[in-house]
Structures are given as structure tokens and as C-alpha cells.
């Protein structure tokens, strides 16, 4: 979805940002990744600092919007992994490059 949505605006994303490095060629991507990292780690001081940096760069509403997306994917990952959600075979083949880049086939959750 990151690749498709970035391609939609003719600004291809660097998917490596998903590993926590760089901005992914996404506006304020570095601040967004730092905010996710801090939130997932649960470090309150780091969260507050990341909130301030994101708000300064993208506007105060960006903090609430990004936190909501974090919450959403904390939800979707549990639904997928708790119910054994799989991709159809055709969709899996289309993701071969991403699976290789991030070593996804090594995850226990690879089904």
C-alpha cells in the first residue's frame, strides 16, 4: 500500500523506511518513523519529543492522525495473526520483491 500510494502521486517511496531508516521519500517520513518507534517502544520521553518534532514539521493534527494509524495497525495485525489470515496465491507472487527485501518469509506469521 505504501508503494501504491506513493506511486499514485508520482513520488516513489523508498520502502526501506519501514525498517526504521530514512524518510522513505515521504513528506515528514523521518518524523513519522521516529514517532512510531517511540510509541511502540513505550518510552514516554521519546514519545513526547517525537510528538513535538512531528507537530512542528507537519502540524499539531498530524500527531493525533499518526497515533490513530498506529492504533489501527496494532488492531489489524492482531486480527490477521489471530485468525490466520492469508493472501491468495496470486497476491503472494506479486509481493515477491518485498518479501525478499524484508525477509518476510522468515516470520512465524508467514502462512
Amino acid at each position, binding site marked *: 500500500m505504501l508503494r501504491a500510494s506513493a506511486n*499514485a502521486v508520482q513520488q516513489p517511496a523508498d520502502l526501506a523506511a519501514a525498517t526504521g531508516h530514512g524518510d522513505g521519500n*515521504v513528506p515528514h517520513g523521518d518524523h513519522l518513523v521516529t*514517532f512510531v518507534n517511540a510509541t511502540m517502544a513505550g518510552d514516554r520521553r521519546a514519545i513526547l519529543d517525537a510528538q513535538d518534532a512531528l507537530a512542528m514539521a507537519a502540524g499539531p493534527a*498530524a500527531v493525533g492522525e499518526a497515533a*490513530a494509524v*498506529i492504533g*489501527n495497525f496494532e488492531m489489524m495485525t492482531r486480527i490477521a495473526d489471530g*485468525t*490466520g489470515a492469508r493472501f491468495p496465491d496470486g497476491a503472494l507472487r506479486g509481493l515477491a520483491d518485498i518479501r525478499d527485501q524484508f525477509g518476510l518469509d522468515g516470520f512465524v506469521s508467514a502462512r
Partner: protein
Amino acid sequence: MLTPTDSIQTAYGQARFPVSALVLDAHRAWVRRVISPGSWWSGNQRIEFVAAVWAALDDVEPLPAWVAPSAAGRVPAGRDLPAPAHDIAYRLARHAATCTEAWYAAALIALDVEPPAYVELVALAATAAAVHGFARGMAVERPPLPDALPGDPDRLAPELVPATLNWVPVRPPADQRASVVQALHAVPDDFDMVWTMAAAQYMPDHEMVNMDWQRGILHRRQMELVAARVSLLRECFF
């Protein structure tokens, strides 16, 4: 007496940054849904399960995936939920990416329930994790849960069939929609709750095809970067 509105105001009223009305409404509805009887679990049991999920997420000395909290003496006494439900709460909260089909089958046996009762617990764990993640990102407390509403579970399930794209059964015809969508078909009210929350926190289902979508400050590609980072940190293949 605490109400769902009080609960959300108590928690999110402390935020340093604005919270959208959509998220406020969705999380208020979620609080109301949690404390209400479900299809297979009472309001008290649902509250206890959410509390167990949150306790697992707060655990500063987490158990490894292969150790159940009931086996480690970590399930409190005097509970409404059976111990295996606490084990499921912990696994889904802390180690969801390690769940396997064999674990799922064993969970059904340990709980002594049919699949829809397990699916209701997945929906609760997932939505509780959403509220936890949002509150942590906003650096506020999670909403306190009001007392349970009275009533018994209705024990109603729609017609279900086996699926190829999920372990759990789904409404027929199976595998015609995305597996993550059909996953919660067994519990229609919680299914609706999840997609109400997703519409508020991320985007409405009918907009998913719009790769140039933007509702507020963040463009779709910025939201997808956040989504990708969270999913990778959770080691979620899907």
C-alpha cells in the same frame, strides 16, 4: 457512575494535541461495546479480557511466547473468565505473530468453545490493542472502563463455513473478500465495531482503492508508512 463519554473525556481530555471527532466517537462506541454482553461472553468477562490484554501490553518482564501466563501463575484469582482466555489475551497482545493454526486448535480445546467464541476474543484483543496504541502515541492514559452492563450473551452466530484464507470459519461464500475482512464474520456486532474504528483511525473501507486519499493532514502514503513500520515491528507477514 462512569459513562463511556466520561471514560473518553477522562483519558483523551489530557492530550497535548487534537484528537479527531471521528476517533473520539469511535472509541466512545468501543467502550460501550466492551462493557455490553457480547455474543459469547458477558460484559464482565469482556472487561476482564480487555484488562488482561492491557496488562500484557504493559508487562515490563514479558513471558516468552511459549509460556502461558496461567502456567506461570500470573492469572489472578476470583475471575469471571477461564484461565485459557487469559492465555489467549496474553498471546494475542504480546506475541500475536507467533500464533499458529495448531495453537488456535489447542486454544479452542482449552477454552471448550466453538470458533465464534474465540473470534469474539480476537476482536476484543485487536480493538483493545488499538486503543492502547492510540493512547500511548498520544501520551495519555487509556480510557477507564465503566462497570459492565447487565445481560447474557445472545449466543447467536450467523451461518459459517470453512475458509481457505483464514483458520476461523466465515460467512458464505468464503474467500470472496480479503481474509482480514472476512476474519470476524462470526461475530457481526464486533465486526461492525472493528470497521467503525478502522474508518476513524485509518480510512473507510470504500476508500481503500483510492491511493491518493487524504482526509486531514496526512496523505495516504504517509499513513501507509506508519502502517508499514508498525506491521514490520509486529512481524506481521500479512
